[in-house]
């Protein structure tokens, strides 16, 4: 256990160095804030352009919250599989990780913590920007913040397990399968209603949406920060039910992701893919 924790801690530090030691802190912060602030403003202008219609301040608030917290999904999902590609093909260190007396899972957990940290920076910046610059009515009371942290931690479990699944796929796929991983994130962005109410989706897509843990996670966060439900099909569901579904789906995802990762890892080692190079 202690060994695993040491590996995770070292991998977190390594991840932080990879992420942040290339620039001075100001430039690094600009980089961390660029994506969330830019997407916030894109949505802001999209709502502005149709403000003569049905778009209200509250409409934007819901889009804003969904988009802001989705950053965790995109950072961790894409980030973990990038870790595999970068370590395998750019730094050529993946083989040494496998040679070292440690478990890959502990190493990836550490690298994921770095991604969670950078996502938290971006999310916090976007929330502050929304509250202070765009004057959005977001509650930051101690109770709200406590509930928010709990909800984030709960959701992060599912995100981490899914990220682990994608990292497993990255072990057996060529570098350009990164498009698949980024695309999958795009699919989640679409299906979990990050930036629009899921009732806009056709019935079949709504059914997929309701099978995704992120849909419930974003709904829970929206309720915590605004005090109102958002997604039509989830209006009749209490907060406890949302938490229950999230916890259950995290458990399920965890079981599947761990089994899938073990299979991918075995396949990659058996086929000699640990030091594969696939850049064109």
């Amino acid at each position, binding site marked *: 256990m202690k060994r695993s924790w040491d590996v995770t801690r070292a991998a977190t530090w390594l991840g932080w160095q990879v992420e942040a030691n290339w620039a001075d802190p100001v430039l690094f912060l600009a980089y961390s804030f660029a994506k969330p602030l830019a997407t916030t403003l894109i949505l802001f202008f999209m709502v502005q352009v149709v403000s003569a219609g049905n778009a209200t301040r509250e409409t934007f608030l819901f889009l804003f919250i969904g988009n802001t917290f989705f950053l965790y999904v995109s950072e961790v999902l894409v980030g973990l599989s990038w870790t595999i590609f970068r370590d395998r093909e750019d730094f050529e260190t993946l083989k040494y990780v496998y040679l070292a007396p440690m478990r890959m899972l502990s190493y990836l957990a550490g690298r994921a913590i770095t991604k969670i940290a950078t996502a938290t920076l971006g999310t916090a910046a976007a929330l502050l920007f929304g509250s202070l610059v765009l004057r959005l009515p977001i509650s930051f009371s101690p109770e709200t913040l406590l509930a928010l942290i709990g909800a984030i931690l709960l959701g992060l479990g599912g995100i981490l397990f899914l990220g682990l699944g994608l990292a497993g796929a990255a072990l057996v796929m060529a570098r350009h*399968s990164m498009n698949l991983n980024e695309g999958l994130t795009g699919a989640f962005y*679409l299906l979990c209603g990050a930036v629009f109410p899921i009732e806009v989706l056709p019935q079949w897509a709504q059914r997929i949406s309701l099978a995704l843990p992120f849909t419930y996670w974003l709904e829970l966060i929206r309720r915590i920060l605004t005090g109102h439900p958002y997604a039509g099909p989830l209006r009749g569901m209490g907060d406890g039910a949302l938490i229950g579904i999230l916890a259950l789906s995290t458990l399920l995802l965890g079981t599947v992701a761990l089994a899938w990762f073990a299979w991918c890892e075995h396949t990659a080692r058996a086929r000699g893919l640990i030091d594969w190079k696939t850049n064109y």
Partner: protein
Amino acid sequence: MNLGAVLARARVRVVASWRETSWVVGETVFPFLTMAAFVLVYRGLNAPRIYEAFVVLGGAMTAYWNNVLWSMASQFFWEKEQGQLQLYLITPVSRMSILLGMALGGIAMTTTRAVAILLGGTLLFHVPLPADRMLPAFGLFVLTLAAVYALGMILSSVFLMWGRSAWHTVTLFQEPVYLLSGFYFPVRLLGAFVGGLAALLPITLGLDGIRQIFYGKEAHGFIPLAWIPPIEIALFAIFLFLAHRSLLLMENLGKREGRLTLRGG
């Protein structure tokens, strides 16, 4: 020989783009889904259908911009990391021919993605793309691509010298450019000053012009359509000249400072 280098560098990308099934799916279906999310934002806001068309056209152009960033601007940096850059430098071909090959191959690769987005947008969201205006729109699109990829050529040598920070700089050029270039809304909304600055990127005016060709006044054009083709041609010529100069400059600087290869051990 230079023409051979162009074709050879382009061929690698064309062949690679069809070699892996995952690549084809990743390049077509999934980018469409991200674009669809933004279409549904407008649908959720009950916006006029024309705004959905803005997103579809913007989504198609996003594919090219991403290709310029990830496969042009950062490519030399990646090739340096993998030890391939030095091989280019010892061959007796113009470096510009390598860049041109990368650009042509990149355009071929990305067109699959852009076509998927356009087809999906037209068929699934019934976005109007008037057939009688296709030809002028295509003409402006070609001019825009020429200028955008010429910009990519400049960035490739600049990014090469930036080293590892290039990787992150690409991210800085992604979503912020989606915002500034009005990929999902008319750039006019940003105001004259910000819009004017964004117009230095050829993709901003190109997209604005293509929307104006298709949708006329409803496109809320930033500048008159007639001005856009000459500006794109001028940008293309300037960027190509600058790309040539910056490539020479960076190569010489890199040779003097020993930064064209990775240091061992």
